[in-house]
């Protein structure tokens, strides 16, 4: 594990660089193939509506994968992530247009733990809704 961020250089409240991740129908089809999750709610509008959704929604695991990039891009080495958990609170709705949806992710250091670790709390929003809850990562920093 090799990270450029020093434990001594961060404080509770230190903000990580926020990022916005676009997601279109094409993104979801590609993610379905890469992850093996072919649930039609992620690509078939007719099916999604039939099961009571407003439209096609992104895979929760896609949103989870994007959100942690705020941490991995900050530290450099993805192996610095020692714990990562989320609650899927609202779906990311992905309309069938050229724009799709956006997932806006911000993060801040919420606690300094032992052994050079910190807890980072992440916030993920789409269309003004909080799409992840309890989104937290424990991250190993350099000492």
């Amino acid at each position, binding site marked *: 594990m090799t990270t450029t961020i020093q434990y001594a250089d961060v404080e509770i409240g230190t903000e990580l660089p926020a990022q916005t991740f676009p997601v279109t129908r094409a*993104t979801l089809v590609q993610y379905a193939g890469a992850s093996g999750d072919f649930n039609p709610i992620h690509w078939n509008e007719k099916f999604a509506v039939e099961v009571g959704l407003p439209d096609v929604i992104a895979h929760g695991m896609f949103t989870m994968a994007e959100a942690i990039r705020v941490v991995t891009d900050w530290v450099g080495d993805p192996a610095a992530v020692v*714990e990562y958990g989320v609650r899927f609170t609202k779906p990311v709705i992905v309309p069938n247009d050229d724009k799709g949806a956006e997932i806006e992710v911000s993060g801040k250091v919420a606690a300094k733990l032992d052994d050079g670790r910190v807890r980072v709390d992440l916030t993920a929003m789409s269309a003004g809704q909080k799409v992840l809850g309890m989104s937290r990562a424990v991250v190993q920093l350099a000492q």
Partner: protein
Amino acid sequence: MALDQSFVGRSYPPTDPYEVGREKIREFAEAVRDANPAYVDPEAAKALGHSDVIAPPTFVFAITFKAAGQVIEDPQLGLDYSRVVHGDQKFAYTRPVRAGDRLTVTSTIEAIKSLAGNDILDIRGEVHDEAGEHVVTAWTKLVSRAAEGA
């Protein structure tokens, strides 16, 4: 109908090994638009101290969720999968998954709860490498929504 509480603590046999390939990791990293070189460039991964390219943190879910199929499809448990949504997901890593790993998953039912007619199922997947060393544990909470009119 509420799930049988006696299934709490039940473990399922370890899965056959899943061999992690460099190109599968690349495919996943491209799908999530993540350009971190540690996922695709063995030299970049080595510079960070890894023996080969590593996988993004959530990559392993594809493996643990497939393994959880043993639980989800267990006819004795009787979960109505058509009504299931993914509630929570958590991972705790001993080390990152990397290319060349041969991973087995042991799934255990950690908890069964019933809340407002919804069945809530917590599955823990312990992922080990070929040497039997722990790599990562995945916790998956599934919520089976109450049928209308039930």
